[in-house]
């Protein structure tokens, strides 16, 4: 496949994809090497910027996707008829923050940090697909462990978990240090 052809095909795939695609996935689809995919995508992005086109390539949640240019924002808002994603409650955000740093983590551990029950915010987050059950802790009662999902990264526009601000003072009561959390697909 010639470089031009490769770029054309990558552009088409990315245009059609319903969610961000990783370089690995794009390589698998096209038969190109991952580093080739990355450099072609970089070229596509440069072309788009050079020609001042309506879309950009964005890296998010360990993958790539097209996003609209800033100037199109008001028109796209109109297209979506003012619909906005409903924001999360402060409680849900707190729980999500705790899970994102300390995953995998049990409900009891989250409750302990917040000093209050987190049952309903956890249900909301599971429902929205922002967290998932990833197994059970090897502890009495074998409690469920929760972790954030790829949808979580997309939701907050994060490339990966390392984009979360570091919490310098954070030392857990058990003396364990935080991080690095693992990502659940």
């Amino acid at each position, binding site marked *: 496949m010639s470089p031009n052809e490769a770029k054309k095909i990558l552009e088409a795939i990315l245009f059609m994809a319903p969610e961000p695609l990783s370089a690995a996935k794009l390589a698998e689809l096209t038969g190109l090497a991952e580093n080739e995919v990355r450099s072609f995508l970089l070229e596509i992005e440069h072309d788009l910027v050079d020609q001042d086109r309506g879309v950009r390539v964005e890296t998010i949640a360990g993958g790539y996707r097209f996003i609209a240019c800033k100037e199109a924002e008001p028109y796209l808002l109109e297209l979506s008829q003012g619909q906005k994603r409903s924001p999360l409650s402060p409680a849900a955000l707190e729980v999500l923050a705790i899970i994102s740093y300390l995953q995998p983590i049990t409900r009891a551990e989250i409750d302990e940090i917040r000093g209050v029950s987190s049952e309903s915010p956890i249900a909301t987050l599971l*429902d929205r697909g922002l967290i998932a059950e990833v197994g059970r802790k090897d502890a009495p009662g074998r409690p469920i462990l929760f972790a954030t999902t790829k949808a979580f990264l997309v939701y907050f526009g994060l490339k990966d978990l390392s984009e979360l601000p570091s919490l310098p003072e954070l030392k857990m009561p058990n003396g364990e240090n935080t991080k690095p959390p693992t990502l659940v697909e």
Partner: protein
Amino acid sequence: MSIDVSVKAFEGPLDLLLSLIKEKQIDIYDIPIAEITAAYLEELKNMESSNYEVAAEFVVMAATLMEIKARMLLPKAKIEEEEEEEDPRTELVNKLLIYKQFKEAANFLKESFEDQSRVFARDTINRLLLEELKPDHDLRNLGVSISDLLGALRVVLEAKKEEEEILPVLPREKITIDEQINWLTLYMKEKRDLLFSDLFGVLKSKVLIVVTFMALLEMVHKGTVSVRQSEDLEIYVSYIENGAESEEV
């Protein structure tokens, strides 16, 4: 039964303590425990007098604070024996510090969300257009948005209000959600499909309507009935064959 809207909602006792510490510009590493305990108890009293149900966690924290206060008042008798007696506040302060950091992290997420809501990609706009405008895609089996459902309930209640004004005051009815689930199951089995307004139109009182509405939500959750909205915005309730049975197996 007026509710004092000036009372802030706190996520929990730690949230309340942090808010007091901030408000009084207290050094978190050297908390004047008597002062903070008094302020905390005052806040609980406010909650109670505003008809807020004070959750058990808040009461537990009040007890913890009073215990720390008492321990700080005790003379340090055996100070020489143990090398350095731990400050009774340490555990609480650590908890507060950890919680505070996660509150800040939650704030970071909130800001990221706001930034992100200005970014349009195929997946975001699809979600907005498909899932939120056409609630058929809703994972919670609600073929209609909650606000539309509540709107329909309001219409039914309004209609009932006019009728009730004519009727004399009736003795208080005791109806449980479980009873209404049973009734609704039988009724829906027979009727299969009907309009939301027709279903609630047969009910005699506001209490009955509200309890039945909660029963309906419960049944939607269990998958025994489904609700959906047609193009002309009418809300339909449908019975799902074997919905409940398969659940109970």
